[in-house]
């Protein structure tokens, strides 16, 4: 048996105590990972605004200031009056003075009413402030000042005939606006699609009650709708979208992909894969100008170098206030191909 001499034992006990003090046993759920967020960090990211206006920053904006912001940064996608559905669904329209009184948009009850605008649906004005501040303009999110957000929202409220032309929206008046929101009473919560009673206040059962029936479950089969013949080809050649081996094949509903690809201009494919078509189209103005318009503008001029630079480095001014973001990921050769193609008017073949 090994025995400690007295001094050695004392030393061992001392060492053990010292080790214990230096590294106390750590609980396994005390991970020691991450660090405290600084108040400035929380402030930078915590920009959400709730329906009760918790989180709403101070600021103000007039309808006319909002119109300036709108025309410079918003109208290009949403239309002069917020009515456009060219890029996104319409924002403005479909609400009446009566809706402002009742708080429920009457047009929503009409199955024949074409489309639903943002103002027909939204119940909470905080939603609009929060979203414009965090995500708009679409290609330059979070670039508006708080005053600009107030102003542009004031302009939208004015377009919707909720507030007068001389209205000033600020962190106080926005509370009055909430009481005038045309669809403020338009939301219901008595459904089973939230996992608790937090909204409904009571347990709600699912709204359909189908049963498992196995034999002679009905007298006849009523086909209410089928795909019209012409719509078969609306999604291209289905044969190309199925495997060419197995228990089934896809139906031939159009020219094969191989044929179409052979006919498509390689630069058109390049524009697609490079992400250009998110903002540009060949014939119509989207967020940016159409390629036809660009070709028309520079007709007869040698601007290949200029256009190359503009696409590579981005810029603004030539086609309104919406900036062209720099396109740094496209290879030089590909960009040259694209420039030549655009200046030719972006031919499809």
């Amino acid at each position: 048996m090994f025995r400690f001499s007295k001094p050695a034992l004392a030393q061992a006990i001392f060492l053990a105590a010292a080790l214990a003090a230096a590294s106390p046993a750590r609980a396994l759920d005390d991970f020691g990972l991450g660090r405290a967020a600084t108040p400035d960090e929380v402030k930078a990211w915590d920009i959400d605004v709730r329906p009760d206006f918790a989180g709403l920053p101070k600021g103000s904006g007039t309808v006319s200031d909002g119109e300036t912001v709108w025309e410079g940064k918003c109208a290009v996608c949403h239309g002069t009056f917020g009515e456009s559905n060219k890029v996104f669904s319409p924002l403005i329209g479909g609400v009446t003075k009566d809706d402002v009184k009742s708080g429920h948009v009457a047009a929503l009850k009409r199955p024949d009413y074409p489309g639903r605008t943002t103002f027909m649906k939204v119940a909470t004005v905080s939603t609009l402030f929060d979203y414009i501040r965090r995500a708009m303009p679409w290609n330059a999110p979070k670039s508006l000042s708080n005053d600009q957000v107030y102003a542009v929202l004031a302009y939208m409220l004015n377009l919707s005939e909720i507030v007068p032309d001389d209205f000033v929206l600020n962190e106080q008046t926005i509370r009055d606006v909430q009481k005038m929101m045309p669809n403020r009473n338009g939301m219901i919560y008595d459904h089973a699609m939230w996992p608790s009673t937090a909204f409904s206040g009571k347990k709600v059962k699912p709204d359909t009650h189908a049963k498992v029936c196995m034999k002679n479950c009905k007298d006849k089969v009523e086909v209410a709708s089928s795909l019209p013949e012409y719509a078969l080809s609306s999604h291209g050649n289905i044969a190309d979208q199925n495997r060419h081996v197995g228990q089934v094949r896809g139906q031939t509903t159009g020219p094969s992909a191989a044929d179409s690809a052979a006919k498509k201009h390689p630069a058109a494919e390049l524009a697609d894969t490079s992400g250009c078509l998110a903002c540009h189209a060949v014939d119509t103005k989207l967020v940016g100008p159409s390629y036809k318009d660009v070709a028309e503008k520079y007709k007869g001029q040698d601007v290949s170098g200029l256009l190359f630079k503009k696409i590579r480095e981005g810029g603004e001014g030539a086609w309104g206030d919406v900036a062209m973001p720099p396109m740094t990921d496209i290879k030089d050769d590909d960009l040259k191909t694209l420039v030549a193609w655009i200046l030719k008017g972006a031919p499809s073949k």
Partner: protein
Amino acid sequence: MRRRSEIDPEAMARAANPARIRKAPENFLGAEEIAAVSGGRRDFLRGAFAAAAALGAGAAAAQDAPKGDEMILKPQSWATTLGQPVAATPYGMPSKYEGGLIRRQSPGLTQVAGASVSFMPLQGMFGIITPSGLHFERHHQGWYDIDPNKHRFMINGSTPEFVKKAKVYTLDDLMRFPSVSRMHFIECGANTGMEWGNVAVPTVQYTHGMLSCSEYTGVPLRTLLEDCGVDWKKAKFVLAEGGDGSAMTRTIPIELVASGEVIVAYGMNGEMLRPENGYPLRLVVPGVQGVSWVKWLRRIEVGDKPWATKDEAVHYIDLMPDGQHRQYTSIHEAKSVITSPSGGQTLLDKGFYNITGLAWSGRGKIARVDVSFDGGINWVEAKLQTPVLSKCLTRFNVAWNWDGKPAILQSRATDETGYVQPGYRMLREVRGTRSIYHNNAIQSWKVVESGDVGNVQVL
């Protein structure tokens, strides 16, 4: 040994290629297949006729000509030459013959591809896991490939009372926490939304393709909230926020967070998330619609009131017939669809088919799936393929002998809560046709005599 006179070229052709006995393949096969089929068959017949001719000319010569499938009799290049070396494709890609099974957009659904949807090709998928490269996409402001070393994840309270300490985590931190891996489905709330009023699109890719299923790896959000000292009594909701341009926000049910089901995920199907799916971090909220699975997740806020963010106050709200909108509809109710055969496909011939499809429920496990071949008059119970997991796709199969007569195929899911997937009549009676979201009606595929399968709605 068989004698020459017994050779029936038609029967031989059928035996060699039993799927190819229909008279007018031009009507139901693609151009490439027609070439392959008729080419192969002509070659075969030519061989047979040559043999027959040789019989007349001289029996000895004919006996030497081999008979059978050229793919067997004739040495093929892949069996007689050297193949590709290892790592020729360091990240492997599907066979070039699988090029048709890709994510696709539905023309006219949206105006710009940066705020749009691409659909998963359900018509050709097996099992329950979606290959990561085919996972459906829904972006609101385009996608980014974010440098994981520059990504930060913050947890804070609406006010300091909800968490003791607001914290910031790097990916290095998060990937050191105890992790879980779980398989779950993700479905967009608007999946099948184009079909509320009537049939609108031709194939299951477009009717049901905003659906995917993966194995996700990450840290339960509960663990992280506890690491920040959450006050479970005061916390009623959490807000999830994305790091992309849209800074997507959604109110998340605290009950699902507290249950440990909600995961702050970095892994998907054994590798990191794909950029289109939120690399390097996304929220996984099992059973809840995809919009709540915030991608490029940068922040969780704990509070006691919901936020009514744009995508829960303007979109993802369900219009009812009386003009009211249901708000905060989040959970997917039980739903199923037959994926093969399905719309836009053609059956090759009469005879045996494995009818196969998927079922899922946001409330738990799938308990059973029934399949009808006569538009819902009679049903048979399908076989559920294991594993059958909670809030995960479940594959079902059922045998069918097609007699060549018209048929209408349907599937009907029941989940472990006893909820049974409704038909269109029942669903529309409650919700009308303008809801856009959460259409979980029974899908019908009509088979006609030619073998063509089409999308129909049965009441």
